């Protein structure tokens, strides 16, 4: 099993509902966020191109954050979800330095926090909070190892890209472009 996500940048309107849903669902401290909206503007008038992406931890296959963690607090659980055990985190910041996506942050309580793909919801057969609230249904979540899952079909049928593939992290979030 390999959990992954596909996000359709052509359907995303950048409403930030996913951001708020995550903050509410995971009780994120005020002023912090695990996911965010990035807007890419390219070209000069009248040949303009706009791409809107909902970004978060890419739950990479090749994880520099898990590698550099000195205590083993950063680890990979079933389905390839990258998680942090709060009780084992000493707050050294090594994983934050090693993430090319700046997807991690230091929780005010002294441990590193990040997107968990809402594993508590996924374990109960639900979708992550961000996916469940998306008003344009531009996000797809599921098992990438299963060729019949919705996310696998979407990834197979569309032109896709990942973020900073040159970092060699093999991200598991695919953007449809």
């Amino acid at each position, binding site marked *: 099993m390999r959990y992954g996500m596909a996000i359709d940048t052509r359907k995303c309107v950048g409403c930030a509902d996913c951001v708020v849903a995550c903050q509410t669902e995971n009780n994120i401290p005020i002023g912090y966020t695990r996911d*965010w909206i990035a807007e890419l503007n390219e070209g000069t008038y009248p040949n303009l191109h706009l791409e809107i992406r909902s970004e978060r931890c890419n739950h990479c296959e090749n994880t520099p954050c898990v590698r*550099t963690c000195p205590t083993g607090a950063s680890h990979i659980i079933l389905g390839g979800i990258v998680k942090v055990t709060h*009780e084992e985190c000493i707050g050294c910041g090594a994983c934050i330095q090693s993430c090319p996506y700046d997807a991690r942050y230091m929780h005010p309580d002294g441990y590193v926090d990040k997107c968990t793909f809402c594993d508590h919801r996924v374990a109960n057969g639900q979708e992550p909070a961000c996916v469940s609230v998306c008003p344009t249904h531009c996000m797809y979540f599921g098992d990438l190892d299963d060729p019949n899952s919705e996310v696998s079909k979407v990834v197979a049928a569309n032109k896709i890209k990942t973020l*900073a593939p040159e970092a060699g992290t093999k991200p598991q979030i695919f953007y449809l472009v």
Partner: protein
Amino acid sequence: MREELITSGRMNLNIDPVLHIWHWQIPVYLFLGGLAAGLLFFAAYYTIIGKEKKFTTAVKFAPVLAPVAIILGLIALLLDLKHPAYFWQLYTTVHLESPMSWGAWVLMFIMPISMLWVASYFKEIFPKFDINQNIVGKMLKKVIVKNDNKEGANWDWKFEIIRKFEINFIKNRKPVAWVMLILAVILGVYTGILLSAFNARPLWNSSILGPLFLTSGLSTAAATIMWMSDNHEEKRTFSKIDLMLIVIELFLITHLFMGFLAGSEAKVQAAQYFLGGEFTVTFWINVVIIGLIVPAILETLELLKFKLPVMVPAAMILWGGMIFRFIMVEAGQVTRFLY
């Protein structure tokens, strides 16, 4: 035009607008760790080649600074942790892929060895000790006793087990020196590898950083020994060693930037911070001119028999080494992958 913005207002503390999760503690630790590694390296080296009588400062006196530097460095590291009470979790696992993990283990071994090394020379450093007069002596009364029969020193350890251990340690100084030499090299390289292991920060992600930090650490240690020594020949030797290390450092810095400029766009941009960007002036003036070139000239003049106070080049080298680490840690966090 190409412009990328985060429109949902991400403002995670120390992550946005630019990554700044490591503050002064890390460069201070890197400096002190490199200095301690260098001091222990020279002490071990001159013991191994059997010249401990000739280079007394390097072998006997300068290593006193090493455990002090390591302890201060560890305090800085502890202050950097956001959950310092959990620091012991570093020692519940060995994670060879994480430089921070094996660095923590190396520190755990080199610290007691450096302390025992210094303690084994106590009788030679303080041969005459009036236990009843001195305040320190009164405090130490619990562990030391008066013993005039002992050759050289007028005191001895109170407990038989410590006395026996000391005799054995002094007898086996050479094998201990070998262990210390290896650990010192690992510690010196580690200060650089710690940074170069982060693929996500293009400025750090260069294998030159390990040898560069080791050389810089050895250079700061040579400068310290040169400054502390009152033996003319020892001073001259360490001036020569330091001059050689400075040349190697300049060579490595050149290669570092050559490597960046021949690399991917992210690396070219990282190098631009030093070649016209915001770190240009601080780096080239403090690190290269004040920290390397001027001391190299002064040391050359000294070797050509000009009379110069040795503390000037020594202090400049230490300053350059410290600023070098500050700039590398600060600038590295600014550099990132472009996407």
